């Protein structure tokens, strides 16, 4: 508790490039950047593979392998190989690790749609693209959003760890504090990151509640 008071009570911690607001913004910026890039790659790919049914096994195998990849190791490897001239070596592993949850859940969501529903949509004269956009995506939305949420959790955590390889963000308080034995900073930073992760979690729950069609979410509840 004393550490928290010391950390949050210190005026220096509230201003400047190493202050809480600046670090929070950085953390948000890196997380959003990684998540957006991952979404741009994983959602179209997942929709395509789920809709055509081609390459599904590849997706599942790759995603399982990706889960085994140690975040810290990947970050260190990329930074050692590509240098620290830009933040690119840190962003690449962030995006790489953010892709699998979105990709798998999008793919599984689309593939898991009741075939009768799909056939009914075709029977009503919808074209392939329309079936995807008007029927498959809305029905698969809960799973797609679950993938996004898992990926966001992953990105927030990885961004924290990336502070070890020189990236800014809230992880700096924790990593720097730990190496200089400034435990107020470690504990304060940790609490901030935990709160940040919880807010992200709540946001995704709200988005899910607002975007998933009532008919679909009822079906999910029945399960």
């Amino acid at each position, binding site marked *: 508790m004393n550490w928290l008071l010391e950390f949050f009570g210190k005026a220096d911690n509230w201003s400047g490039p190493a202050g809480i607001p600046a670090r929070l913004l950085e953390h948000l910026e890196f997380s959003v950047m990684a998540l957006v890039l991952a979404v741009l790659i994983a959602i179209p790919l997942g929709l395509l593979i789920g809709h055509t049914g081609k390459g599904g096994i590849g997706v599942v195998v790759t995603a399982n392998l990706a889960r085994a990849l140690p975040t810290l*190791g990947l970050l260190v490897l990329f930074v050692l190989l590509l240098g620290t001239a830009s933040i690119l070596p840190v962003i690449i592993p962030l995006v790489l690790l953010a892709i699998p949850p979105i990709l798998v859940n999008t793919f599984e969501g689309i593939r898991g749609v009741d075939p009768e529903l799909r056939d009914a949509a075709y029977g009503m004269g919808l074209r392939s693209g329309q079936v995807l956009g008007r029927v498959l995506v809305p029905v698969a939305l809960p799973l797609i959003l679950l993938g996004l949420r898992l990926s966001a959790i992953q990105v927030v955590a990885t961004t924290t760890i990336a502070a070890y390889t020189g990236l800014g963000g809230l992880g700096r308080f924790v990593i720097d504090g730990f190496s200089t034995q400034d435990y107020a900073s470690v504990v304060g930073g*940790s609490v901030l990151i935990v709160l940040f992760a919880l807010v992200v979690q709540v946001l995704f729950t709200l988005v899910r509640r607002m975007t998933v069609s009532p008919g679909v979410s009822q079906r999910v509840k029945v399960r």
Partner: protein
Amino acid sequence: MADGPPSMWAMADGPPSIWEWIARNWDTGRVDSIKNLLGDHLIMSLVPIVAALVVALPLGLASVRWRWLYQPTTGVFNVIYALPSLPVFMLLIQFTGLSKTTVIVPLTFYACAVLIPSVVDGLGAVPEHVRQSAVAMGFTPLRRLVQVELPIATPVVIAGLRVVAVSSISLVSVGALIGQGGLGMLFTRAYQNPFVPPALVGIVLIVLLALIADGLLVLAQRLLTPWVRARRSA
């Protein structure tokens, strides 16, 4: 190139190849030899997997027996699951010190978040007529659970265990940032030196461990549920 200071390449035999580096560091007798780190890594990833199974089975059973328990239980574990590992380790240090426990406890909670729904879904997959047949044959509730319901739930529980095993094995390495990372210590060593081979060796060994654990679980499932294959070939 010519008029620069003599670089590390100017050394007689150059930097060691990755194989030389492994051979030199495999068993140095020190705590940070690759062999010892591998042992630490196994302990820190296996204990959470087993502990989570021990916790998740009764909690899952209770959630099936008393439905109202399920939502709050999974709710709590979902929130815990969303917490990034590094700050959780850091906050735990005050209570458990710089020990393996600091890594093992959070990993157990993460694993429970995955396993409890698996146990509940697995038991939910037991067809009602099978359950009633067991009752009609005079099975006591305990015997019904052990001989009928748990075996039928096994594939779903093992699917959850596979996710847990692979992600625990890779997550342990984050502990390196508090000096307890098993093979993850190779990553901090690589970064500090800076030298690529330890990082590569660490990644490869961790992925290999994960693949082996996954393979063993698949094997366990085949052995525990022989009827699945019998039905397929019939």
